[in-house]
């Protein structure tokens, strides 16, 4: 289907890292069902390294592909590197997303950041709170996705 790149279709048809982690060190969920997309990321962290990562996604093809690619990009990486993952990098790794689907990559970035925030909060690790200024999902959705 010409709607998506081959990379997107590959990650959609064969998503990597689907599932959950029992006793995850950090869990992050973004999106809402009303908008039609929710992403949930589970992290297993040891010595500041993301030893394992799993995701669950309710959403369109590009949302599932973005989750899959983003988890692949942070697996085995340091917390620091994971925090630096941008939605643009995810989209580029997928050989691009259609303009109205870019917000799926934003969700992937946000989900990972939220999962790391959960890990920081649980372990009393200090972090830059500005990074987590509340972003209303519907606003975000309208901004990236709107007509």
């Amino acid at each position, binding site marked *: 289907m010409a709607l998506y790149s081959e990379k997107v279709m590959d990650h959609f048809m064969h998503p990597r890292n689907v599932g959950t982690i029992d006793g995850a060190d950090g869990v992050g969920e973004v999106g809402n069902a009303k*908008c039609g997309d929710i992403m949930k990321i589970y992290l297993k962290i040891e010595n500041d390294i993301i030893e394992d990562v799993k995701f669950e996604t309710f959403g*369109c093809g590009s949302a599932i592909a973005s989750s899959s690619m983003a988890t692949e990009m942070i697996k085995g990486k340091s917390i620091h590197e994971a925090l630096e993952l941008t939605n643009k990098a995810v989209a580029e790794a997928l050989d691009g997303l259609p303009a109205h689907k870019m917000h799926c990559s934003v969700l992937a970035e946000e989900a990972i950041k939220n999962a790391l925030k959960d890990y920081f909060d649980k372990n009393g690790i200090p972090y830059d709170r500005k990074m987590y200024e509340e972003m209303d999902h519907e606003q975000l*959705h309208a901004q990236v996705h709107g007509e």
Partner: protein
Amino acid sequence: MQVYADNAATTAMSQVAINAMLPYFDKVYGNPSSLHSVGQRAKEALDAARATVAQCLGCEPREIIFTSGGSEADNQAIISAARFGAKKGKKHIISTAFEHHAVLHTLAKLEKEGFEVTYLDVHNNHNVSAQQVKDAIRPDTCLVTTMYANNEIGSVLPIAEIGAICKEAGVIFHTDAVQAVGHLHINVKEQNIDMLSLSAHKFHGPKGVGALYVRKGIPLVNIIEGGAQERGKRAGTENLPGICGMAAAMKDACDHIDENMPRVAAMRDRLIEGLSKIPHSAVNGDLVHRLPGNVSFCFEGIEGESLLLLLDANGVCASSGSACTSGSLDPSHVLLAIGRVHDVAHGSLRLSLCEYNTEEEVDHILKVVPEVVQYLRNMSPVWRDLQTGKRQYIL
């Protein structure tokens, strides 16, 4: 196996329609407006096509205007009736909440000009009743425009009853019959329909051609200005191959309604019964008064676009009313109008069959859809929350 189950979007052309078109590309290529013999042969073909279309609808040939399709016919019918009404000081229109955008957007334009539109509620049986129309008619009502059958959920409206009510009240009745023509028996005189829109590619005809039936005596307003084609009501050299293909497809479809309808409806019913076994799902649309080929479902916990992509990968072409497939933020207005909340409307699936589909294809769909729904649910955090009780089931 590749199963095309999106016949409400468009159909494959029939061989009958293709053969009917071929002479009009290089043999009878004249302009029907030309006085010479080459043009007059084209004019004869145009007249014959008009007579065929009129016969299928039960009207006079001069009551048929050829258009570029259903959308143009809807625009012209509604604008014309509104202008006619406004001259008599009548600026109220009745429609339904689940019309096609060709109707809704035209009505929105009229609302900006000061017309008032009543959109009938479609929660009850996912349909409207003739009584609702009757109750909504006012002294200043100039037009009732309701679709004949809904494109997404398949509900067939009580057209003859609405027609009778409009006739009694002296209100023009237009119906967007794009999904009905060639699939259901229609007779505009018996059903008291004043205006009717149709589109050729929904009944195995070519794309880009349609027609508007307008009862004698209702003045039309031009949407396209120019030459005197179509009795001066629709300018532009006629799309003769398209019109001849449409006429042939329409006659073929109307001649075979009695044999096609029960066979297609049986496949539809088998799909509805089979897919209803998927837990936390719901059928959309009127279960009694329903298009023979329409199957429409909502599945909780999944999103429609990913469902369509996976079905396509498994050889099933279908459609959905999810936001991601509608190209806007909101899921289909039809699903919202019948009361499906956003969360559930995103997980919708429409399968639309025609007489070209087979029982083997139905078997394939019945095998693939439950598997794909389960696969997507297994990776959905919404489904997990529903199963663990963190979220309440809607369906």
